């Protein structure tokens, strides 16, 4: 590639990108850099502006404000067909009047490759997706997983600088989804193409992405690696959206500069060890986030915080058991325990002890409303 490839120029950079449809702001001042060969996932609930963002990168719509750079060059005025970006649509968007081979050859014909090159490249791409013998099939005869792979082969055939995946796994059944997820990652590594993947499925995001940008209400809420996003969510929204978290409101009672005590709405004192010292001042209203799996439940518990509780609901999930428990003060918690040898499954109505260590919680200043 060019010499620029060796410098730190991100493959794609969004700079203050905003998209408004009438009064509705779909994407609000998004700035984001995507490194070469990175696999970035844009994760957000439906209606968060993910598709608008993807369509702007692809060039189907123009940003109302801001600029998009590919390899350092602004592309806002470049039409989609000159952007060299491959996209896999949610519906796959395979051309129904063409065979598999013709679909994969389409972008190459548009670029006036010579016919021998096209044949060769189509064969290469079908090998990459491990379906070497289907070139002459009608796309209507393919299974969901095959259509998916063909769509990827078509999007990569012309060696795009960027691959966009719009909810690529949402139309597949659960089993196939796991398989395609590994397949996508394998193809990503083999082809070494910078990839932007959009999804509303947090599990899909965590397992696939190098980095995840969580988008909410058109804005980027957090942009970090999967581990960081899970272990240090920067807002109650992220804590709630990724992973299973109970959010409790309370008020800081006192602190010693490092550790603090929060009084929950039910009056229970909870010892917290915020990652960012110093803790909030006494009297500050806060939200305490507790991951289901960080809380332990048992006959007795030996943790910094320990409470007596009653099991209200039990959900047996096979590998795990999730309890909904009521603390004696009225606070409701959910607890997930691994179902290993020797684990007791508590039944509904039982008295149990639940607890967690200081530092296992997330502490946020309470937001208004």
């Amino acid at each position, binding site marked *: 590639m060019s010499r620029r490839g060796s410098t730190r120029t991100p493959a794609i950079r969004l700079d203050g990108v905003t998209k408004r449809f009438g009064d509705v702001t779909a994407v609000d001042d998004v700035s984001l850099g995507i490194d070469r060969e990175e696999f970035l996932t844009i994760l957000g609930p439906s209606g968060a502006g993910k598709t608008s963002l993807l369509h702007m990168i692809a060039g189907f719509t123009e940003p109302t404000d801001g600029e998009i750079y590919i390899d350092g060059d602004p592309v806002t005025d470049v039409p989609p067909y000159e952007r060299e970006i*491959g996209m896999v649509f949610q519906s796959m968007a395979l051309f129904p009047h063409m065979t598999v081979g013709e679909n994969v050859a*389409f972008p190459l014909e548009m670029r006036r490759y010579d016919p021998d090159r096209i044949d060769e490249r189509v064969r290469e791409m079908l090998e990459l997706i491990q379906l070497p013998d289907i070139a002459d099939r009608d796309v209507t*005869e393919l299974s969901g997983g095959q259509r998916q792979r063909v769509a990827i082969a078509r999007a990569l055939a012309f060696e795009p600088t960027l691959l966009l995946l719009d909810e690529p796994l949402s139309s597949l059944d659960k089993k196939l989804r796991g398989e395609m997820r590994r397949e996508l990652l394998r193809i990503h590594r083999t082809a070494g193409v910078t990839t932007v993947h959009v999804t509303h499925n947090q599990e899909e995001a965590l397992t696939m992405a190098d980095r995840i940008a969580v988008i909410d209400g058109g804005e980027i809420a957090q942009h970090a690696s999967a581990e960081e996003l899970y272990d240090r969510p920067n807002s109650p929204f992220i804590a709630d959206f990724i992973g299973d978290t109970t959010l409790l409101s309370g008020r800081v009672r006192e602190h010693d500069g490092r550790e603090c005590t929060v009084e929950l709405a039910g009056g229970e004192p909870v010892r917290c060890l915020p990652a960012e010292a110093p803790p909030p001042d006494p009297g500050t209203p806060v939200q305490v986030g507790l991951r289901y799996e960080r809380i332990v439940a048992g006959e007795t518990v030996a943790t910094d915080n320990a409470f007596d509780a009653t099991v209200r609901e039990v959900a047996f999930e096979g590998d795990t058991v999730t309890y909904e428990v009521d603390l004696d003060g009225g606070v409701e918690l959910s607890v997930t325990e691994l179902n290993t040898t020797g684990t007791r499954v508590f039944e509904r109505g039982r008295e149990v002890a639940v607890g967690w260590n200081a530092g296992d919680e997330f502490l946020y200043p309470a937001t208004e409303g």
Partner: protein
Amino acid sequence: MSRRSERWSPLLAARRAAVDALIALKERLPEDAYRNPPTAVGYLLLVPALVLVGFLFVGMLLLAWYSVLTFDPIEILVYELTLENWRRLFATTGYHVIFLRTIVLTTVVTVLAVALALPYAYLTVRVRSAPLRKLLLVSLFVPFFTGVIVRAYGWLIVLGREGVVNAVLGVFGIGPVRFLASEGAVVLALLQIMLPFAIVMIAPAIQNVDRELELAASNLGADRLATFRRVVIPLAAPGIAGATIVVFTITAATFAIPDLIGGGRVDFVANLVYRTLFDSGNYPLAAATSVALVAVTSAVVVGIFRTIGSGTLGIRRGGGGG
């Protein structure tokens, strides 16, 4: 953004209204009427259509029968079998010219109508601005409110010797130019009549082309023209084939426009039949000419089916590829 099905579209609304009416009708029918496969009641509902088509068919058979009877200037029809009418039809150069002109001009009108209808239909279906779409639709349907004869006289006023165009040309010291009684004028007038038919046939076909396929084509490197040529047109082929057949068959049998605008210089086969029948009273020859026209038109329709494939009309949908 908004999906096809969610977007307000008069075409879609009209289609929905029609389908709703059909469903309402269906609900009132006895259940036997719409069983799949059809039962006796279902077949019974075919009868009115069969009777109508049957009359046409019987008429055609009668024409074919007349075409082999003998013409007599006094008795008009003599029930003696002869091939004289057909021989005359095949042997007379004047008739060849009229047949050839009909086919050539009809082909020109068909090609132009379909070519002009494609972008119009595409724009009507895909345009984002609602007022513009309404304008396109109104302009499409207004011509249907005026008859062919009215529009023919309209053209006489526009293109005549003392007409609007010549008045404008006169300002620049040009003319007067004789526009009427020319092949160009006939083609123009026919095109104006046929264009809406072509658009109405093609628009639903374009509406059925998934918009995401166009985005995909664009993403893969196809500019607008290539997207239109490689994706939209092939996928709208059923509508295009339908439009071609409708425009061709109606135009090939046209009478009024060549009569009024052509002024006897640009006769089509229908005008020939008229003259043979009413000027010379030669029933058998007129019958032979009519049958020949139907045969030629049918051959073209079969040809279109053969080239584009009858499956494209959507009749064999789901019957397997290939």
